[in-house]
């Protein structure tokens, strides 16, 4: 039976996480670390310890901004940004879902927007996010100003060959 560490390493398909010697450069440079449940280097340790549920259930993996500062500065080139992507995908696939529910709901609304029109129509995407998250009132005061300034186009051009876009979503399921 594959350990949690082996599973994550296989998916990252790069430098193994054991190469980390906990210098904490990743955590020192991480702009989201102050808001995270566990620091990025701590997550590596937890994966090594096999703490699967705790890691996949943590806010950390959803608060990672993918700014890639960690991988840029890691002396051993451990790809922590990619690790966070892998962990998020594992949390979704295993049915654990997201500790930071609205972050995932935003991603879902965004991807639904691509699936619908090939390109993102921001007002539609925001409406869908608000319905999913029930976060109905935040930013509503910004909307009229944005609309008047032409930043919220209700009708925006779509991709014409929508079949090719929909196919991507369908086929990736079968991979």
């Amino acid at each position, binding site marked *: 039976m594959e350990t949690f560490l082996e599973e994550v390493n296989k998916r990252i*398909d790069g430098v193994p996480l054991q190469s980390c010697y906990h210098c904490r450069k990743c955590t020192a440079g991480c*702009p*989201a670390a102050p*808001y995270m449940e566990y620091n990025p280097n701590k997550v590596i340790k937890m994966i090594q310890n096999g703490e699967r549920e705790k890691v996949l259930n943590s806010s950390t993996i959803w*608060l990672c*901004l*993918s*700014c*890639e*500062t960690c991988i*840029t500065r890691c002396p051993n080139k451990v*790809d922590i*940004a990619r690790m966070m*992507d892998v962990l*998020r*995908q594992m949390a*979704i696939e295993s049915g654990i879902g997201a500790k*930071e529910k*609205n*972050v*995932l*709901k*935003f*991603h*879902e609304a*965004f*991807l639904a*927007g*691509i699936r619908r029109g*090939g*390109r*993102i*129509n*921001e007002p539609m995407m*925001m409406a869908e*996010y608000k319905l999913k*998250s029930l976060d109905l009132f*935040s*930013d509503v005061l*910004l909307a009229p*100003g*944005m609309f008047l*300034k*032409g*930043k*919220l*186009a209700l009708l*925006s*051009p779509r*991709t*014409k*060959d929508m079949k*090719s*876009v929909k*196919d*991507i*979503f369908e*086929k*990736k399921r079968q*991979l």
Partner: protein
Amino acid sequence: MKVSYYPGCSLHATGKEYDESMKAVSRALGIELKEVEDWSCCGASSAHSTNFDLSIALSARNLIAAEKDAMDVMVPCAACFNRFKMAEHHLKGDKSLKTKIEGVVGAKYQGGIAIRNPIDIIYNEIGIDALAAKVKKQLTGLKTVSYYGCLLLRPPEVCEFEDYENPFMLDKMMGALGADVKNWSYKTDCCGGSLSISKTKIVVNMVDKLMKAAREAGANCVVTACPLCMANLDMRPSKGLKLPIFYFTELISLALGVEGAPETLKSHMFDPRPLLSELKLI
């Protein structure tokens, strides 16, 4: 020179000022743009945060579309640029992934065209001297800090951006326009990116820190090359901390005296025009 042009979703919506000023600057500098045929979204943060194969496939569809014109593709949005470079990196480095993704997209990926951001194209193809020679209105009194953010620069092996911890190309460009370029240590810090909507408080903290640092450096405005940075810096700072934020292309087009250049400034959420009128630049 002639290049393919991939605007991406933001440049047709919240980032429309970037699209308009990018086109104006390109015309003024003799860069001909041909829009990628029937492009779709690159997938942005939402695709790679949830499904790796999807993120590569969505970008690959566009790279394959761009390859039909066999020219370098200019990608102004830092997020799209990052996703395209990332897709290229994985498709070139992993044959079995390439085969799998080609199956999903239904077309072959050649990998023969260069993915370039406009900072690189203007700096390296047009050149700073040629840019300075075209300046009609020196941006005297404008004290800028250059804000590169994350997605143009990192990871460095993928983005191939020059001097990724202390980038200088925007600084040199603004200097060539006559701006007083201030140095600061936050050139490559993150603005909070895609958490702007789902975790707004975190993003407010992050942009407030940037705005304070820009003021401390003596700047009266911030220059960016990313529609996500623009949206966060323009809308999210707390009251009293806001500063005018410009796309670098807006300042180039202003300095080159492009007709109608101030038009795009009207749609910024924090109006930069009072500063520019005070400095007699508009």
